[in-house]
């Protein structure tokens, strides 16, 4: 049942041009652009490496948080989830398939970033491959938790795209996805210091650039997981399968 649903989730994702472009292509496109304009190095690191890590983080938020919230709110408000509820498909199996599909999509996106970086910019490959793979799972766990929470709170299929972008783009900017944040004024630094993406990027920098273990920075790891868990708690409390009454 899980594999069956996963296959159809992937089919649906790649057939939906909006999702495939916005969710999958966008981070790759930004990497291509930023990688072409930034100078040689950022804070002593090759710029193309720092940006690759940054856009990997942005991609996690975009795919798992944005993509998931958009899919679920759209399906709930159009009645797809309601219709599924009267079939024998278990809700847990359904959600598991949707999450796995997100993981597959983000995994492919990460591979795309490495490929693009390696071929076009001569960017470094992960210093710790296993840790890098772990970061893919960690990113989906954190941001999918937040995506589920957002899907529970956003009640309008028309507004969901706008809402997630208003959250994701400033977050990615403040967390340093698109370039260094050392020259930010203190207020913005302070905001960045509570954002999940900031800590996720710390973990990614560790495994990708420094060859650290995924667990090298327990604080960062804990903050990332706490954000994901918070999203999950909101989802468990407020997520419904029925569309808003019309």
């Amino acid at each position: 049942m899980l594999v069956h649903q996963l296959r159809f989730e992937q089919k649906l994702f790649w057939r939906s041009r909006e999702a495939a472009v916005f969710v999958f292509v966008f981070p790759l496109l930004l990497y291509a652009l930023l990688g072409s304009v930034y100078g040689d190095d950022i804070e002593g690191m090759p710029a193309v490496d720092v940006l690759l890590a940054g856009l990997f983080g942005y991609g996690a938020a975009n795919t798992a948080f944005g993509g998931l919230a958009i899919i679920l709110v759209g399906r709930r408000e159009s009645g797809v989830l309601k219709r599924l509820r009267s079939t024998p498909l278990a809700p847990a199996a359904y959600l598991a398939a949707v999450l796995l599909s997100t993981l597959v999509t983000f995994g492919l996106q990460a591979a795309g970033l490495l490929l693009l970086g390696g071929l076009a910019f001569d960017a470094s490959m992960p210093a710790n491959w296993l840790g890098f793979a772990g970061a893919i799972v960690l990113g989906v766990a954190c941001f999918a938790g937040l995506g589920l929470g957002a899907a529970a709170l956003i009640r309008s299929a028309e507004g969901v795209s706008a809402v997630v972008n208003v959250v994701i783009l400033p977050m990615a900017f403040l967390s340093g996805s698109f370039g260094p944040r050392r020259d930010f004024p203190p207020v913005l630094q302070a905001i960045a210091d509570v954002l999940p993406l900031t800590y996720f990027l710390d973990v990614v920098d560790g495994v990708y650039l420094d060859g650290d273990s995924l667990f090298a920075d327990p604080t960062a790891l804990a903050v990332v997981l706490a954000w994901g868990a918070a999203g999950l708690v909101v989802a468990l409390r407020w997520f419904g399968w029925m569309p808003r009454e019309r």
Partner: protein
Amino acid sequence: MSNAIVVRDLTKRYGTVEALRGVSFSVAEGEVFGLLGPNGAGKTTTVEILEGYRDRDGGDAVVLGYDPGAAPRELRERIGVVLQQSELSPLLTVREMHQLFAGYYERPRDVDEIIGLVGLGEKRDARVKTLSGGQKRRLDLGVALVGDPDLVFLDEPTTGFDPAARRAAWEMIRSLRSLGTTILLTTHYLDEAQQLADRVAVLRDGLIVRQGTPAELIGDSRITEIRYRRDGELVVVESADPTRELHELTSTALREGFELEQLEVRRATLEDVYLELVDETEAAE
């Protein structure tokens, strides 16, 4: 014959609105049962409680031997649902959509057979988004049938159909019935209930105001209509005592020497009965 559905004293309120105020009925296995009533009478609420979507506030409900409030997997395995409003993913083809749903059931029917049954054979490989409204409704029916259900819920299955599509849908529902499937149907079309349902319950304001076969319901009505034209103007007399009324009318006409042009005596149709039953509601709105 045992019952597929038994409902006793079902109540449901939304805030201060009492949507159901003690609804009782039962549906025998293999029967087509029609819930008839104006918008807001409680048809969809009743059906959605039985489908497991809504909790009831009071009363008993048993569907195929299970409590629909708990909606166990065993029950969901055996029911098929056509919602009043529903949408399926526009990006899959008709065949893929049936395959997707077939994968949810333990013993699904053959996908191509179902597609043929609902008349979408030629649209097999068309994406859902390219289907017309009527074709989408047939797709809803197809995916409801793909799990080979014993009981099918059809919530206003032909709303928005043109007459030809409606007749085609009726044929489909009849063939379903001939296979022994139990069907609970809601509709506000009287001809639909009359054509399809073995028994009908008329809902008004959350209560069943009349229940029986369409023929019984019509037989219940004491109203007979006498129509004629006098000096070109249509006169309609509704009478509970038509023999006397007609006798007096014709006597007067003979005595005074005028003609009852286009004289017609008509027994109530289900529509008259229905309008009689829901009249109060309509007037109150």
